[in-house]
């Protein structure tokens, strides 16, 4: 998603003299062109995330609209209080971009994984979260962020199960995508909802593991707060199936699944597939971690079949 982000943010910033870009000393082989185009509006703030968020708040107070970029765990946990006090409490248009949501950074190790970022950020006042489902959604998300006069967070990620697939529809404001529809709405079905790039697990399952033969609707959500009043298709699907599998590359506690369950009408059958570490945790690629957490296409299909009694 990073290349798509760079292209999108460059086109926004070139046309917005009030925009500027702060990087926490990241961008090798990615931001060189952006830096050249922006000149003095591209600032490497150094390896200093707390200061970088405060600086961004200062820029915003003077009327600028800063984007702030680093690896997701670094630009969230280290500087959480700066995000809360300096940005959110002041309702400033600071756009925080974290690369490497979930297990994206794989064998770089747990310092680089972001499995709690949405949890710690979703509780902050005035902050809006964006977590694109796929690379081809990043430009739309960047466009929405750019138009908001509010604090926001953009979670970029690479799925270990990345599976290009054209969405059937995408809501222009919530960005919620429909990827597949039940073959027979008259029969028992299931609504599969992926949070951001976790929907790629379902897309892989559709293409290679037989999810397409189950009676499943597949949606990807990409924005918090969840707004089901706008996402009428998703809400209708859940009302009809009364049966949900929610997938997220994030811990269950505080994740989007929890928020979705709270937003939906009471359901008897809401299953959650989420990230985890184990007491005997070992480290490896993103896919290695997802297999350990049973966050895989195979596990999804098995769960769907169990829920539908079709196994």
């Amino acid at each position, binding site marked *: 998603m990073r290349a798509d982000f760079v292209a999108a943010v460059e086109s926004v910033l070139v046309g917005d003299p009030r925009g*500027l870009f702060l990087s926490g000393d990241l961008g090798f082989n990615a931001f060189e062109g952006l830096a050249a185009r922006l000149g003095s509006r591209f600032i490497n703030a150094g390896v*200093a995330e707390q*200061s970088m968020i*405060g*600086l961004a708040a*200062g820029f915003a107070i*003077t009327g600028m609209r800063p984007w702030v970029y680093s690896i997701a765990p670094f630009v969230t946990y280290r500087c959480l209080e700066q995000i809360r006090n*300096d940005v959110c409490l002041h309702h400033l248009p600071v756009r925080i971009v974290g690369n490497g949501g979930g297990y994206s950074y794989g064998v770089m190790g747990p310092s680089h994984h972001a499995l709690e970022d949405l949890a710690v950020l979703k509780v902050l006042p005035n902050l809006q979260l964006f977590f694109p489902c796929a690379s081809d959604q990043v430009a739309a998300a960047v466009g929405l962020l750019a138009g908001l006069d509010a604090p926001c967070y953009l979670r970029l990620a690479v799925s270990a199960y990345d599976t290009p697939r054209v969405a059937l529809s995408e809501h222009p404001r919530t960005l919620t995508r429909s990827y597949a529809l039940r073959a027979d709405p008259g029969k028992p079905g299931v609504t599969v909802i992926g949070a951001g790039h976790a929907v790629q697990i379902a897309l892989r399952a559709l293409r290679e593991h037989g999810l397409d033969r189950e009676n499943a609707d597949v949606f990807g959500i990409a924005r918090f707060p969840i707004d089901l009043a706008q996402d009428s298709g998703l809400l209708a699907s859940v009302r009809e199936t009364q049966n949900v599998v929610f997938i997220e590359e994030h811990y269950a506690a505080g994740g989007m699944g929890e928020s979705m369950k709270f937003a939906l009408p009471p359901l008897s059958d809401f299953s959650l597939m989420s990230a985890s570490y184990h007491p005997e945790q070992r480290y490896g690629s993103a896919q290695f971690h997802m297999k350990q957490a049973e966050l895989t296409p195979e596990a999804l299909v098995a769960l769907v079949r169990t829920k539908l009694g079709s196994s």
Partner: protein
Amino acid sequence: MTDCMEPAALARAALAIRRKFLDMHYHARSGHLGSGLSAIEILTYLYSGWLRETDEFILSKGHGASALYATLHHFGKLSDAELATYYQDGTLLPAHPAPRAIRAIPVATGSLGHGLPIAAGMAHSYKYLRQTDARVACLLSDGECNEGSTWEAALFASHHSLDNLTVLVDANGIQGFGRTNDVLRLEPFAQKWQAFGFHVSECSGHDFAQLHAAIGPPGNGRPRCIIARTVKGRGVSFMEDTVDWHYWPMSAAQYDQAIAELDQSESELSR
């Protein structure tokens, strides 16, 4: 002195602000007296003319808010009615500055180490992006210089030659639970700021002539740091240089004594 006031007038202003400050704290039964009293001359100097309409002031030591409120009130930037709400339910003037509350205070603070990064961002924006001649002043406590984020921002300000940024440190030598020399030694403090690339001056933070000389004209390619040596609780003998008065509110007898001491100072001033 400043553009509009002479030393004697500044001293009278500081005395009036101290009086209002004590009055506010007595009626609110609020603490943080010591850290407000140490900053009053610094705030008086800045607001009596150093800060122009286009300039910004960031109170990074948010626990000095009541001294700032009293100063803003003295210089007509807060009304009697607004100030009367200090510390009361429904106020926009809590013990530490609130966000988006009053125009004269652009930034909420209270957690230490936040003000200088914000001030540096504003100064960079004014100098390089908005290209105005606006200046930014930021008042830190010395205890606040324990915070790593303060030094992150110092690196940034120096690297970007933010000579429109003036850092003032209210160096009263006492922090939350002890003397700075005992908790986390800052000395050699001036050399630290110098090593970070600042133009550094030291002065008494209660002497207007010294403050004036130390702040001086805008720095030449470098941010400035003025280490203002102050006395915590300055102006009220029994509050001076103690940790206790970081916390206690005043009793009626203590308030009466404090006011009597200010009366004495005032009569000495008019001699």
